[in-house]
């Protein structure tokens, strides 16, 4: 099968908007207490909430601050061996009040506190599909605004 015939699909449905020119992470906000979650959930996770109405889907901010990160140095076993080492994982603080983990686009020049922006890119491909996931990419210079 040629490259052109392969389908381009998200690695997991429902985590980010796709297809989209400007993909965003899909979360949820509770209309009762305002708690935000990622991935989106049909149940609010605030124990103080009266849970009288279910959370509503929202799109999360595409920029945040790097809370911490890890540089992973070895390949994973099947079936997740498409994550090829070395790769970096970041915990990113978003303005909505969430810390979300995601792959970072690079392993060098990383600093806690730097600004990062969400993007969707190829994670890997097999014989049939090209699989996409969300990444966080350091914003030019990467320093805190």
């Amino acid at each position, binding site marked *: 099968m040629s490259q052109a015939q392969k389908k381009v699909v998200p690695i997991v449905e429902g985590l980010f908007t796709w297809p989209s020119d400007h993909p965003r992470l899909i979360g949820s906000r509770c209309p009762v207490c305002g708690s935000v979650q990622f*991935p989106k959930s049909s149940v609010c996770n605030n124990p103080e909430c009266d849970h009288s109405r279910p959370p509503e889907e929202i799109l999360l901010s595409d920029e945040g601050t790097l809370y911490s990160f890890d540089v*992973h140095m070895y390949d*994973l076993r099947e079936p997740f061996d498409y994550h090829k080492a070395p790769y970096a994982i970041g915990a990113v603080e978003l303005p909505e009040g969430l*810390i979300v983990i995601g792959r970072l686009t690079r392993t060098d020049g990383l600093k806690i506190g730097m600004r990062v922006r969400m993007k969707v890119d190829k994670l890997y491909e097999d014989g049939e599909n090209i699989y996409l996931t969300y990444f966080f990419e350091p914003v030019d210079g990467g320093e805190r605004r």
Partner: protein
Amino acid sequence: MTESAVVSAAISDWVEAGKPAPTVEVVASVALEAMRRVGLRPADLDAVISTTSAMPFGHPTFLTTPAQHMGHRLAGKMGSNGLQVFNVSGACASAAAAFSIADSMIKSGKAKKVLVVGYDNSPRGFYFSFNSYLDTDMTIGYPLKVVGAVNPSYWAMWARRRAYEMGKPVEDIKELMAIIKEELSKNGALNPHARYKRVFTVKEVMESPIVDDPLHLYMISAVSSGAGAVLLADMDTARRLTDKPVKVAASAVGGPLHNEPSPRLTYFATAGGRRAGKPFYEWRKPIEDAYRQAGMGAEDLDFAEVHDTSAFHVINWIDQIMGWEREETDRLIRGREFGRGGKFPINASGGTTSFGEAVYAQALMEVYEIFTQLRGEAGERQIRKEIKVGMATAYGAYGSYGAIILERAW
């Protein structure tokens, strides 16, 4: 309220997964050994509380019935007068939860003699490598599939964040973790039940491959196979069975906190910004609950057995048990005051790092060690000071925790 006590405990050797084979006979042999030491028979028990995942080798369907019903199978195997059976799950903190249920049953008067067993046969590598584990709430499995985040990835992020918050370079916490590994491995070298009975020097640790920067290979615990059994009884019965009962001063269990900011194992997101609580309060809360139950504080503890799936866990446990400034923890570690001759011995057993983690049995290994140390029966690895009170802590995926305080009662 009735007081409860540990009257006996036994553990198997911790070995590479699959050796011995995962059988209920292994659990039965350890359970019967614990009972024999105080002259009890299965007929004398009121309840069995069991915890195991009995991880199979790449065959998730095996996870369900046999493992979930290990307690019943054990009761059937060794003979039972229709005793109460519970099978408990709480990831790596499972055995602490099982222990706490036993403690509560005795304190409430609902049972007088309760056997807690934990067993695991953990395969090499990472657990969540099965697509079939993926569930609709997108916790376990999904962060691995989408982000490539394994357990040590989370621990590495915690370690790096702690160094950052203290204004220190990441090399600083790396050095602390290497010191921890060296010191705990000295204890493990003296423990006949440990899987790794040799000393790992700071130099060796720093030269081992980096797995998840800043964690090197020897800063991360392996997974093992092992079984533990602990017998609890009400204090009156305990005093008849042994002249050295160990009082259960507290047994607390913790779960996930909605406002915990530290990235939680197996989750995509935790609370940030204004919603975020104090980092690692999820770990601290069961410890505070245990202090409240016991009417004690950190100053009353003489030593601890902590769940060290990585060397970072030791640092964090000291932070959380002590509730002091993080610099104090670093000083304790650099001064090697957590060794068997130090001010606050940690993991005189050698810890998870010397045993490898037999996941669902791990907290029983810790209880066994505290029981043995308090009774002065630890031989070569006996803590070199007078000890009266010890704490065991457990930590696991999904936000599962336990904190137990044991006290000499003679």
